């Protein structure tokens, strides 16, 4: 994939599929490294499954025997000299952390992060996303529960005007990092 933001979109979809009600996404760039972390409270998986999910011939889907999301992320991280770690517990949730060396020539650019955030919220407007972005000593957070509080129950987060606001909010904050 051509953008780190597309990997983020793909990997967070796993948490949505696992029926998480809260998903924390951290994307922090500091001292030549970028750390991408996802933590969810979805259904989790067994130690045996967690051990082999980065193998392309392992998948939870039933339509086919291959799953490329996590293998792609692992490859993207490792080709910069970074790594991927994943831990999971059945009934509790899954956490993963991918480390990238941003100065490496094979580092994928971040791309349209706002587009990824909007796509996630459009597809799963009832999930609580807590998204933290940081670069060096600057950071910003988007917590969908705070937005929900302002919108007060009668306007859903996937309302087009709200999605446009979220897109602009993330775009502006990205520029300020």
């Amino acid at each position, binding site marked *: 994939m051509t953008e780190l933001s597309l990997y983020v*979109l793909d990997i967070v979809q796993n948490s949505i599929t696992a029926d998480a009600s809260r998903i924390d996404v951290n994307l922090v760039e500091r001292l030549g490294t970028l750390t991408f972390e996802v933590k969810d409270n979805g259904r989790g998986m067994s130690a045996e499954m967690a051990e082999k999910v980065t193998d392309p011939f392992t998948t939870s889907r039933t339509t086919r025997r291959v799953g490329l999301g996590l293998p792609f992320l692992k490859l993207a991280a490792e080709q910069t000299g970074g790594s991927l770690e994943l831990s999971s517990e059945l009934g509790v949730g899954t956490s993963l952390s991918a480390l990238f060396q941003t100065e490496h020539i094979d580092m994928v650019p971040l791309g349209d992060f706002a587009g990824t955030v909007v796509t996630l919220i459009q597809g799963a407007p009832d999930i609580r996303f807590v998204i933290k972005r940081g670069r060096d000593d600057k950071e910003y957070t988007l917590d969908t529960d*705070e937005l929900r509080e302002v919108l007060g129950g009668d306007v859903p987060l996937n309302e087009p005007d709200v999605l446009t606001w979220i897109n602009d909010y993330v775009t502006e904050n990205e520029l300020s990092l």
Partner: protein
Amino acid sequence: MKSLEELKAIREKTRGQMHLRKEDGPDNTRIVVGMATCGIAAGARPVLAAAVEQVSRRSLEHVAVTQTGCIGVCRLEPIVEVYVPGSEKVTYVDMNPEKMEKVIAEHIVNGRIVTEYTIGANE
């Protein structure tokens, strides 16, 4: 800078119209975009964004845009399925934002299937 005040204004503006939009209504047309690894890698994200934008801009009240996982024909992604009540499902393949706009104008608004973009024309 975007502020929560603006979001409050959106709430005031939108809440009155919410009863018009019945997202899960049986009379709704559904536009479903495949958003698994295959779809994302092939460019589904801007296709979905184009669908959301067009539906909003044209104020199409009985049209819902949703996402799904892998539709099963990964080499033809991005794939978009259109469900019009009372009609057979139409599957559009190898989509991009421009094609999505055309599908909304022709199929969703005017009721004419864009045959050249369908999976039947591609196979």
